[in-house]
């Protein structure tokens, strides 16, 4: 069994709580049928696809984190934490891909430029962001622990 730092457990416990809260907030906002924005950097979508379906996935990601922190050093438990991050990457990746595809064309149905102007292109990436996008950088920390585990396994030559 490869020993991980207890810092990892605490970090992913906190991330799990925040992620679960965001998932629940997504579902509640969707159920209310309106959008929610906070201080210009957070926007919870109210549509059934991103808010409802996406919210369920964010909620599952939080539950994966919380379920994986117990006996964190065990590879099967650690895999749950990794899976929590993968779920966030899926939702956030889709949001970012949607931003990219929406930022390039001008969306003019009649004549005029085919592509967006530079200010509008840049503005498409400005906040507010969906919860999954805000969680994305924090979820990437799992890569550090994957590498740490891999190097630990190479060093000790065993695995759990």
């Amino acid at each position, binding site marked *: 069994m490869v020993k991980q730092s207890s810092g990892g457990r605490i970090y992913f416990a906190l991330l799990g709580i925040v992620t679960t809260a965001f998932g629940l907030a997504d579902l509640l906002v969707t159920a209310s049928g309106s959008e929610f924005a906070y201080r210009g950097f957070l926007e919870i979508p109210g549509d059934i696809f991103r808010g409802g379906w996406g919210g369920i996935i964010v909620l599952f990601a939080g539950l994966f984190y919380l379920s994986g922190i117990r006996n964190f050093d065990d*590879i099967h438990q*650690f895999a749950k934490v990794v899976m929590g991050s993968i779920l966030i990457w899926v939702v956030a990746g889709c949001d970012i891909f949607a931003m990219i*595809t929406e930022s390039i064309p001008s969306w003019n149905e009649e004549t005029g430029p085919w592509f967006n102007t530079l200010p509008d292109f840049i503005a498409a990436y400005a906040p507010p962001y969906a919860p999954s996008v805000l969680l994305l950088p924090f979820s990437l920390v799992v890569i550090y622990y994957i590498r740490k585990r891999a190097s630990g396994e190479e060093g000790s030559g065993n695995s759990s």
Partner: protein
Amino acid sequence: MKLSTGDRWDLIDKISKETVTFGAYKHTLMDAIGELTIKPMTGIPVAIAIMYGFWSVFGSFAGFFTDGFFVRLFDAYWLPWLQGAFPGQGGWLYAIMVDAGGIESGEFVLSSNCLESFGVLTSGLFVAVGVVLPAIIIFYLMLALLEDIGYMPRLAVLLDTVLHRVGLHGYAIVPTILSLGCNVPGVAATRILETKKQRFIMMTLLAIFIPCGAQISIMQGMMPDLMGWILLYLIIGYFIFGYILNKIVPGKAPEFLIDVPPYRRPLLSNIGKKVGGRVRGFFVVAIPFVLLGCAIVGVLYQLGVIRFLGDALAPVFVGWFGVPKETAGPLIAAFLRKDLAVAQLDAISDIMTPYQMITAVVLVSIYFPCVATFAMMLKEGWKELLGALAVLTVVVFTYGGLIHLIGILLGVA
């Protein structure tokens, strides 16, 4: 020389001792993740996330090309140019090839966009190239990625129990997902199922309840708000009628054995070959039918056949299904191309309530399979085709009527 059972096992032991090396297995992170995606408690959330990613990327990619560029290219440049350049405005050939137009105050008026013009060179080309091409490319790209990563066998294992309820097994997910691209390869893929009963159930369910990628992309573009409800009705129908078919169709539905491979990094060359081959195959089948479908529907409109059928079938459409009689045209077009039929429904959306639109699109989906799928089913056997068509007729009337009844009970029909 004849070996007894005991001798055979001794021989197996002897061979395995000489050829197999035994050692402690190192469980890797990928193994652990692989197990998580198979166990229902953890695998179902992952499957939900993967389906979300699939449809989100599908919608963004198709929307980028269709709404971002092709709508404008066809509506602002191609249609006006062709309306002016093609000779014989107002004539029957002009109506079939370019623009059927409309009559306002006794004068012929040209259409303002390619979806309303119903011409072979306008609506036909726009649907085939502007709508279906981007959707099909991204659909097959995502599917090839899931296959090459090694996720599809896991999805098959995960859904095995559910699919057994409808007389199928986990492998049935392959034709089902392939059909979401195009029903033709989906019907061909039913051959991976072992028994006649399974193949019949699968083929019938595909023909009735699985909308093809072209139809989905049109729905995504024309009526994104209603798409969830339409798909929900189709999924519910898939399982209800699958369950009934499993009970009434004689034959066996055996278990399946599957070798689940480890997760692997996808190879670009593999993905390229798969996507290229499938997109080419789709276009060889679909493009001629889209253009031919447009032409035949145009001719039927010009001859007044569709108006006659609309009037003749009005009691059924209005009374039983709760949709306007004008949906007769799209339903006839649905036999040739379902994507065109949905586009035609969108063109008459102003005379329908949202619930009527949901009912009409579900009817287009569960109504007769498109002619390409029809031909493929015939290739699989005429008895199976006739059986599927009999089931289809019953399903259209019972399920179509049921949806209308639900609408009445909810007060939205």
